């Protein structure tokens, strides 16, 4: 039986530990500064300057999210379990009446709160600018984007905790985390495009549905698709994913389901691995 009070106690400790992390503050600060710069000055990727509406701003901010938010998640979660093992605090924690699943869930919730605050603070200034420049109806689109960014953070956090549950040292954990970040953010889409170019899109097994399916295997692409499917007018600014995919892939229910899977599957796998982990 899960004890909520125990989970909350661990969440609180994890939250307090992490908000004291200076590197986290630096990243949130960078996120805030860049989001402010992008929303006010920089729509340069689209050849524009100054503020040019919610859609353009969100499209630019999405690129920022994809680089920075998974990185923040990995920094938060990579040593959540291995760190306790290396520091020697784990045996005492495991000897308490808390079960391993309560410990894992407590850590997950604590870190989820931290990443949510990081995203809200990071994108808060941009939200204020949109609110000042646009009508209230546009702000719902922005909230959807922020919500999607929080989900992006949580899904990568879930992966980071999974890595932390099966590795034995901080070094191994950070190495795998950096590799995965690099792979998902820089390599994965290039590989897909490479396959399309190499086969000139004519290979039997390469079609919109297959490419769409492959996109769902990358949480960063799920984030793009999810945000595009919910915010009107964004599709035109975010060519890559929308050009490659058929309509089915922008089905909101499918995307919500996949997003939830990206959060829960790594989490459940992590709990299982942590249960079996021996010291």
């Amino acid at each position, binding site marked *: 039986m899960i004890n909520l*009070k*125990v989970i909350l106690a*661990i969440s609180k400790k994890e939250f307090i530990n992490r908000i004291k992390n200076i590197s986290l503050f630096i990243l949130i600060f960078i996120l805030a500064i860049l989001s402010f710069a992008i929303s006010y000055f920089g729509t340069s990727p689209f050849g524009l300057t100054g503020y040019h509406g919610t859609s353009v701003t969100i499209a630019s901010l999405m690129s920022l999210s994809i680089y920075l938010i998974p990185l923040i998640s990995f920094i938060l979660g990579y040593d959540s379990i291995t760190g306790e093992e290396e520091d*020697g605090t784990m045996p005492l924690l*495991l000897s*308490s*009446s808390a*079960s391993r699943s309560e410990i894992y869930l407590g850590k997950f919730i604590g870190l989820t709160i931290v990443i949510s605050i990081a995203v809200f603070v990071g994108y808060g200034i941009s939200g204020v600018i949109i609110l000042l420049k646009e009508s209230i109806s546009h702000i719902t689109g922005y909230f959807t984007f922020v919500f999607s960014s929080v989900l992006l953070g949580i899904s990568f956090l879930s992966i980071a905790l999974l890595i932390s549950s099966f590795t034995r040292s901080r070094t191994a954990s950070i190495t795998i985390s950096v590799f995965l970040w690099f792979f998902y953010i820089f390599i994965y889409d290039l590989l897909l495009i490479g396959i399309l170019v190499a086969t000139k899109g004519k290979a039997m097994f390469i079609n919109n549905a297959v490419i769409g399916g492959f996109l769902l295997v990358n949480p960063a692409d799920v984030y793009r698709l999810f945000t595009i499917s919910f915010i009107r007018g964004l599709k035109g600014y975010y060519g890559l994913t929308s050009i490659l995919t058929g309509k089915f892939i922008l089905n909101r229910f499918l995307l919500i389901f996949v997003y939830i899977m990206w959060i829960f599957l790594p989490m459940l796998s992590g709990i299982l691995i942590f249960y079996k982990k021996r010291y």
Partner: protein
Amino acid sequence: MLKQELNKEQANNDKQVIRLDNIHKDYKLRGGYLFKALIDINFSVKEGEVLTIVGHNGAGKSTLIKIIMGLTKPTSGGIKIFDMDVSLMLPKNIKARIGYIPEAVSFYGNLSGFEIMRFFGKLNNIYNKKLFEELLDNAGILKASDKKVIAYSKGMRQRLAFAVSRIKNPELYIFDEPTSGMDPSGINEFVSLVKLINDEGKTVILTSHILPEVENISNRICVMLNGRVAALGNIPELAANLGLTSKINLRFKGGAIPEKNWFDMIKTEQLISDYEIGDRNSTMNLKFLEENRIKLIKEVFGKYYNDLADMNIQKPGLFEIYNHFSIKKVSND
């Protein structure tokens, strides 16, 4: 009626808190080698006793403690704690009855001693400020409870771990090298604390290298040698089984030492089993096996030697028992 009560009392006295059956633990090493950390461990721990596990580094003490605490799994064998099979995992209701100090104690450095108590209290569903203060006071660190743990010495962290282990008021305490890093006075205080909890009827298992201190508080000793239980029992039993002799240390006035022939004679008469004449201070050690000869030896020496300054008897203790196995380990190596 009285007989029934006595039987019941006897049954309670022999109630097993922990039962280990044929525990084996193997570690696979690189290159396909197999390291046998524990080999066929069989023993039980009775309610209310203090069992001390001693052994050389790498003897398997900590691995055994980790297996009991569910931190690692045995390769084969069964463990029962409070009559429940915990071979696969240690359930919450059993963990709630065990207080534990791991081999290397470490806490969250950014929290104070009191915050640590509060945190572990919450994990055990206990929110009692007065209790936390009392336990910190008993452990001798109440005054430092507002300080961040990062500023604590190793000994202070051990004391804090002791206080944390008592939060649940457990029936069983498991301490893995609890005195490591403590200064002599800290060790003495720790021994007093173990006495205190044992007097309350709690069962204690501890591993230690500090032999003289734990000797007085241990009901039984488990000597581990290369992953096996080499000996188990109380100190007089173990000494007798190993054929360890008691010693009488004699010191004479003004450098007078009895003639060697005289000692050879009483050795031939089997009053003593051996003797050593010291180079300095006019001392000598007599080794003998049977306790009932002490009186006779005293009488003989009292009668024949007016130059005897003092005489003290040294029975074989944990140190001698441990030493016996250390020599065995070295010869095996």
